[in-house]
């Protein structure tokens, strides 16, 4: 266990990542995007023209809007970034011809994987936590409690960790970063879009046969494709209105955890046998 904590791969990876110019550029851009989104959400919430002009705007309403907007926006941005950090991390070693040096050292495949995984995830967490002040802004307005904040952050971390393991698996499969990154984006696309489309078809089919039960929302087997959608647990926790039918965030977390474990196992196995690729 100590070897996993004092893994030299982690130090090497973090050192290399923080020396890249994107180390400061990406957080800057990320926070600018989020700040812009929050400003837009704020003005949208307080502008009576957008809100319909009928009712008085409460602080809690503003807080809820800001919170939901930031949470969804940051997940979108981080889902776009996760493949860049994870799917290239093993292929870059192959491209730079440094991978043979790693796997002929006394580092084990799990240690190499763990070092790459921690480095990729830590960078994403740096972005995630740098946006916490924006999220806590919502707490100041009200309408959101700290427990929700913790749940949302925890769920986002879990989803990002799973995407990182998928990225690392892709990275262990391919020789070129461009191919592994494209494959990882393919997975993200399938999880985010295809699951939603399949869910849409299933709901339409279910509603056509169960017109009476519409108010109760679709059962678990109809929602099942959405369990693998990265946005599902967030919407299940926060979403009112149209998303109130999403009621199984725990199932989604369990599925993402299983997916991550499976991808990690495959990636480690692949690293062990990667001599053929060199």
């Amino acid at each position, binding site marked *: 266990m100590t070897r996993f904590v004092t893994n*030299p791969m982690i*130090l*090497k990876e973090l*050192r*290399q990542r923080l*020396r*890249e110019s994107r180390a400061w550029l990406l957080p800057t851009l990320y926070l600018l995007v989020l700040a812009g989104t929050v400003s837009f959400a704020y003005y949208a919430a307080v502008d009576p023209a957008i809100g319909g002009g009928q009712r008085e705007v409460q602080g809690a309403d503003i807080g809820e809007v800001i919170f939901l907007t930031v949470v969804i926006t940051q997940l979108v941005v981080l889902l776009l970034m996760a493949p860049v950090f994870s799917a290239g991390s093993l292929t870059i070693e192959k491209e*730079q*011809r*440094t991978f*043979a*040096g*790693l*796997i*002929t*050292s*006394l*580092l084990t495949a799990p240690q190499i994987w763990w070092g790459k995984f921690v480095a990729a995830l830590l960078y994403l967490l740096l972005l995630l936590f740098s946006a916490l002040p924006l999220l806590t802004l919502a707490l100041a307005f009200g309408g959101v409690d700290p427990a929700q904040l913790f749940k949302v952050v925890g769920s986002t971390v879990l989803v990002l960790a799973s995407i990182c393991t998928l990225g690392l698996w892709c990275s262990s499969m391919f020789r070129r970063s461009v191919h592994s990154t494209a494959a990882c984006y393919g997975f993200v696309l399938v999880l985010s879009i295809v699951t939603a489309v399949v869910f849409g078809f299933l709901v339409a089919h279910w509603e056509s046969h169960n017109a009476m039960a519409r108010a109760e929302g679709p059962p678990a087997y109809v929602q099942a494709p959405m369990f693998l959608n990265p946005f599902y647990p967030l919407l299940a926790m926060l979403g009112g209105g149209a998303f109130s039918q999403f009621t199984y965030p725990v199932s989604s977390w369990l599925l993402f955890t299983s997916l991550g474990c499976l991808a990690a196992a495959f990636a480690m196995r692949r690293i062990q046998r990667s*001599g*053929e690729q*060199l």
Partner: protein
Amino acid sequence: MIEVEALRKIFRGGRGLDGFSLRLESNELVGLVGPNGAGKTTLIKILSTLLPPKSGVARVAGHDVRTDPRGVRAAVGYLPDVAGVYQDMRIREFLEFFADAFRLKEPNRRAAIERALIRSGLADRPEDFVEHLSLGWKQRLLLAKTLLHDPKLLLLDEPATGLDPLARITLREQLKQLHAEGVAVLISSHILSDLEDICTRIVFIADGKNVSEASSGAAEGSAAASIRCELEFDGPAGTVDSILKDAPDVRIQERRDCLLVIELNGGPKEASAFLHKLLAAGIVITHFDARGLNLEDRYRRAFGGQTR
């Protein structure tokens, strides 16, 4: 140090190893020679645990490459044909990372890093970034990194590729020094003159099989069963041709106008007899040079290149 017996590794393309065998003792510096695709890199990759063999036995320092790869890795220093470096790391950081990767503990770790810095000649610039080093310096750093954990065996795959003459000379001296310190070395290279200079033995490989072996260096002359003769003559070429035709032990290596390079079975005595035969036929010899076969001649003999 290395025991390889009937090793097989077949790739989809067909190249690989096909029953190759080799024994290398701990006091040897062995050169592995063969044409492209002969199986040199495959053999070195199997011995460094990068590739699993299909069948046969491969043991390094008593550890089987299949059942005890970690034992093999602890005993071996492997330098691939095109080895990369972490350009964005400082020289010391680069060595520290590999010292940790080989689980060196203090105070051995610090001592190994200092030794590597001195060995690579980079002791005065440990804080420089690796990307600022020339190819020759990078190769020296890589060799020093390969030696960090004091391996008993060095596996070097084309280590001189791309190096300038001075860097090649330095590499040769380093390998001689390591051999003198008791490190066994298996080196694959196409630069035959370098191998001839440093190796105690040369192993020829083609199509994944053993072709032949030869001692190298000073011992090679006396052990040679052939002699190479270079001669220039003045006289009718037809007479020379008919003499060559009647001499079954002679193989022509090169023929240009009045210049002839031949390989002759036997030693100086046979060369002298051949010279007498030419003189007796009335051919005027303006230049005659007979010497034992060098590695290049042996390579030609093993893999072709004769004109007859």
